[in-house]
């Protein structure tokens, strides 16, 4: 039995831990978050050259063919570095969806090679994270209406869209004649991962899957993206913890480092517990999804429900430990605190996932049996 990271996974972790803070230090995060799309061509090229865009895709598409635990390892380090811009939407969301669609895989090469940045437009005014909530209709191969809270749309040149036709859910790739699509920024808390409204006016779209096939691919891709997100959140928690412990050791009041006071120590101890517990849940969910265990979807929801509250709570305590400094723009913690809120909401908040868990463990007798 192997409960820790393998040697290869450890190497990947060290490489990611070195690469992201070096190529995208927090000063660069701050610069990019003021730019529409938070996208920088130079940074993107380095990410591509290191193979990160192909990490989980098969070698035949130009990827590295690694598994979902490796994905979590990389995502954790991206979250720790607060990597801004379209990577997450491109690889972990749209890329995964394309990978789950037989008709989508031909497009993976462009993603692995970094030629395309992509995103998924799903939410509408109903703001529902399940495909049932999608009301946009595809008529005569064209989409009309508005998608909301679409991440990284300004930087994307491949736009996937969830819609329906004849009562069936479908996934389509929007071909993008500029005059039929209008993208507008929706200013939001996390400036490193920007949100947009995307309005279609009879925009031509190519259907990649419909009905059960589309539904299954969406479920799979959303589960994987959710695990990647939770791993990213763990990295963010880790960074807040590191910053707070460091601050508690150096900041002096009443003639001693504030980390000597138990009230401060206990805040830090709780932050560690929340971080480690989220990490346990994230890696188990990644492993379960990779292996296709019976409890995989519940494991994903357990991880997302827990981490959604834990990241926010670690942020709260981190700011508290930093005192007045923690409330300043200059201090980096608020950047993580903003990301924490956006991540909490993305792919369903804690309440959404707890209801999903309840449907299995409170309603279903068989599924509640001990794993």
């Amino acid at each position, binding site marked *: 039995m192997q409960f820790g990271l393998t040697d290869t996974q450890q190497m990947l972790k060290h490489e990611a831990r070195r690469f992201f803070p070096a190529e995208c230090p927090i000063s660069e995060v701050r610069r990019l978050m003021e730019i529409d799309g938070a996208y920088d061509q130079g940074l993107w090229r380095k990410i591509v050259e290191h193979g990160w865009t192909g990490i989980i895709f098969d070698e035949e598409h130009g990827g590295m063919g690694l598994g979902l635990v490796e994905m979590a390892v990389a995502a954790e380090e991206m979250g720790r570095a607060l990597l801004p811009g379209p990577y997450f939407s491109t690889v972990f969301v749209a890329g995964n969806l394309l990978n789950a669609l037989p008709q989508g895989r031909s497009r993976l090469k462009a993603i692995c090679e970094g030629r395309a940045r992509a995103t998924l437009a799903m939410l509408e005014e109903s703001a529902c994270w399940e495909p049932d909530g999608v009301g946009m209709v595809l008529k005569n191969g064209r989409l009309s209406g508005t998608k909301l809270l679409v991440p990284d749309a300004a930087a994307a040149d491949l736009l996937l869209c969830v819609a329906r036709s004849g009562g069936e859910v479908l996934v389509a790739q929007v071909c993008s004649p500029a005059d039929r699509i209008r993208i507008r920024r929706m200013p939001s808390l996390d400036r490193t991962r920007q949100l947009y409204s995307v309005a279609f006016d009879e925009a031509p779209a190519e259907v990649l899957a419909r009905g059960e096939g589309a539904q299954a691919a969406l479920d799979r891709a959303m589960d994987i993206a959710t695990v990647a997100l939770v791993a990213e959140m763990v990295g963010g928690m880790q960074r807040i913890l590191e910053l707070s412990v460091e601050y508690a050791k150096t900041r002096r009041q009443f003639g001693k480092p504030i*980390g000597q006071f138990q009230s401060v*120590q206990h805040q830090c*101890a709780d932050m560690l517990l929340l971080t480690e517990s989220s990490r346990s*849940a994230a890696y*188990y969910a990644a492993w379960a999804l990779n292996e296709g265990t019976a409890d995989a979807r519940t494991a994903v929801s*357990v991880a997302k*429900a827990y981490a959604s509250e834990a990241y926010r709570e670690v942020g709260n305590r981190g700011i508290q430990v930093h005192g007045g400094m923690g409330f300043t723009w200059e201090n980096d913690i608020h950047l993580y605190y903003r990301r924490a809120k956006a991540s909490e909401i993305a792919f369903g908040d804690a309440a959404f996932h*707890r209801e999903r868990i309840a449907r299995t463990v*409170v309603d279903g007798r068989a599924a509640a049996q*001990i794993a």
Partner: protein
Amino acid sequence: MPSGWEGRNSAGESMEENFAYLRAWQKRVHQGGWAGVSWPREYGGRGATLIEQVIFTEEMARAGAPPLANVLGLTLIGPTIIAHGTETQKQRFLSRILSAEEIWCQGFSEPNAGSDLANLSTEAHLEDGRFVVNGQKVWTSLGWAADWCELVVRTDASAAKHSGLTVLLVDMRSPGVEVRPLRQMTGESEFNELFFHDVRVPAENVLGAVNDGWNVALGTLMHERATLGAGLHVLYKRQFERLVELAQTIDRHGAPASRDPVLRQKLAQIYSEIEIMRLNQIRSISRVNHHGTPGPESSLQKLFWSELNQRFQQVAQEVLGPFSQLENGSEFAFDHGQWAYSYLRARGNTIEAGTSEIQRNIIGRFVLGLPRSY
């Protein structure tokens, strides 16, 4: 699996009868070769890894098997003797722990040495090659049943408080040992007070070196934090499944309580936390397996399971509704008052085996490297 076991204290009328049942059960487990799974073969164990020990503990819990009577000897004191004992001590004590021939208790806490354990004042001095012990211990689990005690005493009053301590292995039948019951808020007397009046202990019964008792005791405490939770998540999960079963049948506003949206949220939260407790435990045990002995990280496990159980029992009370408060004896009590009992018993979880405050101190200082606060 023995017959006649339906959970806590179900095997006998009295605490003693119940314990005799558990002792006989451990003897059977021992005869089957399953006591001390992770202990070295030369002392009667299976020589398996700690992970395998945990798997065995989990399987016992999953099968609803009774606990083993000599729990402190098996999980805390035995491993400490294996780590610090002389060969003679190992030969003398270990196999009798496994067979439940000799029951062990732990003489650590005192009225004025709780969280500040190193402040203990039970003292011992050498007289004609034997230690003479005087003092008082408290919160001693199984004191009433014990044949032997792992006792921490002060042997050098002039040394700094952590440096003058020694661990003695004390025969509870020695003249001058007095055991009194300590009734706890649940109404039970799991614990005892121990009094030592001029109790004589042979010098060869020192565990580890004289005045090195703090290190020896610390090893025991870390084992306690690391292993007390092993298998516990299985018990919690069994309890959770039972609670769900009840929730599906209990009426709440004309529908099963399991359909109540607020209770569903709370149940799902508890399920998640039990699951995370399991995963934390697996990671922690893997680390112990890697490094040999449990480290200060075991405080994270202790903190998590103890606080989780309090939240769990509160949610159970909310799910069960007004009858949740009924104790054994009422026909309206659920599961013979088990839930009312568990609610109260959980209250002790964040105090026993080191309070949550002490665990957070340990995490802050030894895991995160923050400066010493006291």
